[in-house]
């Protein structure tokens, strides 16, 4: 009886060990699969970022998502005139709104810029939105005559001590 009991015991032990090994491999395998999907472990890295401070900033940002102040769309800086949300939705995916708002161009030049982005920068076909976008840009971001040299502007006067 003794040896048989021993046999049962070791059989149980082996089966337990096999299950453990199998379980261990299962864990390793799932970790490896996770690494394949997310080699940068971004899911783990994102956590502390949220904790630091942007958490509060994000909450505010969401609240202010569509906020308009003094005729300016706060989140992007666009003039909140007809068609601006179409511009926000089509023109701020790749680059910042700042690249638009700091420029002044004629309708023709804005159109040429859109064509250039479509030909070389992977901008999609804007369909019916193109007319809305061009009208908006040509109206709100039109060039002003500057001449060959402008006056010095925005001077902050201060006393220079000798």
């Amino acid at each position, binding site marked *: 009886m003794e040896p048989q009991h021993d046999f049962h015991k070791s059989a149980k032990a082996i089966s337990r060990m096999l299950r453990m090994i199998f379980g261990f491999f299962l864990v390793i395998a799932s970790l490896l699969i996770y690494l394949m999907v997310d080699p*940068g*472990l971004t899911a*783990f890295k994102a956590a502390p970022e949220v904790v630091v401070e942007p958490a509060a900033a994000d909450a505010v940002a969401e609240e202010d998502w569509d906020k308009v102040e003094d005729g300016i769309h706060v989140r992007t800086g666009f003039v909140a005139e007809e068609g601006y949300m179409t511009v926000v939705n089509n023109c701020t995916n790749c*680059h*910042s709104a700042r690249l638009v708002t700091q420029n002044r161009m004629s309708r023709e030049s804005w159109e040429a810029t859109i064509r250039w982005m479509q030909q070389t920068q992977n901008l999609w076909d804007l369909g019916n939105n193109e007319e809305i976008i061009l009208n908006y840009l040509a109206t709100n971001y039109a060039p002003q005559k500057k001449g060959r*040299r402008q006056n010095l502007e925005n001077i902050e*006067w201060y006393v220079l001590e000798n």
Partner: protein
Amino acid sequence: MERRHFVQKSGLTALSALLGAEIVFGNRLPVGLPLLGLQDPDPFKMFNKDPQMVLLNDKPWNMEAQAHLLDDKITPNKFMFIRNNGKIPENIDVAGWTLSFDGEAARNPKTYTLNDLKTRFPQHTYQLTLECGGNGRSEFDPPAKGNQWTIGAVSCATWTGVRLRDLLEDVGVGSNAVYIGYHAADTHLSGDPTKEPISRGIPIEKALQDETLVAFQMNGKDIPLAHGYPLRLIAGGWPASTSGKWLTGLSIRDRVHDGEKMTGSSYRVPCEPVEPGAKVADEDMCIIESMPVKSLITYPKSGATLSPGNSLSFRGHAWAGELEVSKVEYSIDFGSTWKACALEAPANRLAWQHFSGNANFPKKGYYELWVRATDSRGNAQPMVLPGWNPKGYLNNACHRIAIKIA
């Protein structure tokens, strides 16, 4: 930098890290996570820039200095402009970083590790002026498209690295070599992995100059991330876009390099002058090479008010692309009369030169201090905008600051 190195471990390293998973994550969580910092809304903190720097664009990151911030003789990182065409690379693996030479005119295509570069070739340090080709674009009329740089897209830091010439000699340059084109690790804004945001370069003659470096240090330290860490091509005196950041490859071409931003209106100006607003055909555009003569008054800051009888000590820097500045003058009467400034020799070729002067004002009132530099070939800065061009490059009109005697 260590933290940054850490994050992009992948493949085998990640596998081996797996066994120590708890330690790995434990190490990761408390640190400042510089990579996530790339999404940090405060670029001044993220790039160690002075809060007085002016943000022009946040996707991609573009930031310029103001004149009075550039008063240092050697520009520190905190006042150095940032000009990016694409996204800053996020996973920088310094241990595995390599620089590959290829191209039609490369005799023996080769790949060097960062360590190879640092140990196998003599190192050199030069102070080099880097100015964005579009510095001053904001003044053009009709306006030119792009980031609206005013005057602050210029810097003159010291760069340490190996001579590109030494590397080219090691690789072997065919007699058919015409141009060197760079390739880098930054990524395209659209996210398209097949697109390079920018891949410019320099003619072989410029590549062979003493001062043309493959640099790994700026101002004696690792190059800051926004300025090309860990490796950057440096071609002083030329549009800063020729000094490719996050350098991973150099192609020795048997033709003018045709990478991204080498063609069309990018970094090119009409070969012959055109009237403002003219349409210029591609074949009539020429690549910008040496930057033109220019200067900046860095002290005092514009807007100084002095009491009558006091003279004004002012100073700044002047540079002239490939050339030296031979003369700097100032005017307080809108260019009617000019007086000489004191001018120092450059620290080395292609470094900016320091000027200083002392102005006296005849009576109370509003004045503008104008400064104009002249290069060694007699070309002086214009008082008004120079030749209009479609993308608004090469504005070297004289710098002006406002002064009041009251």
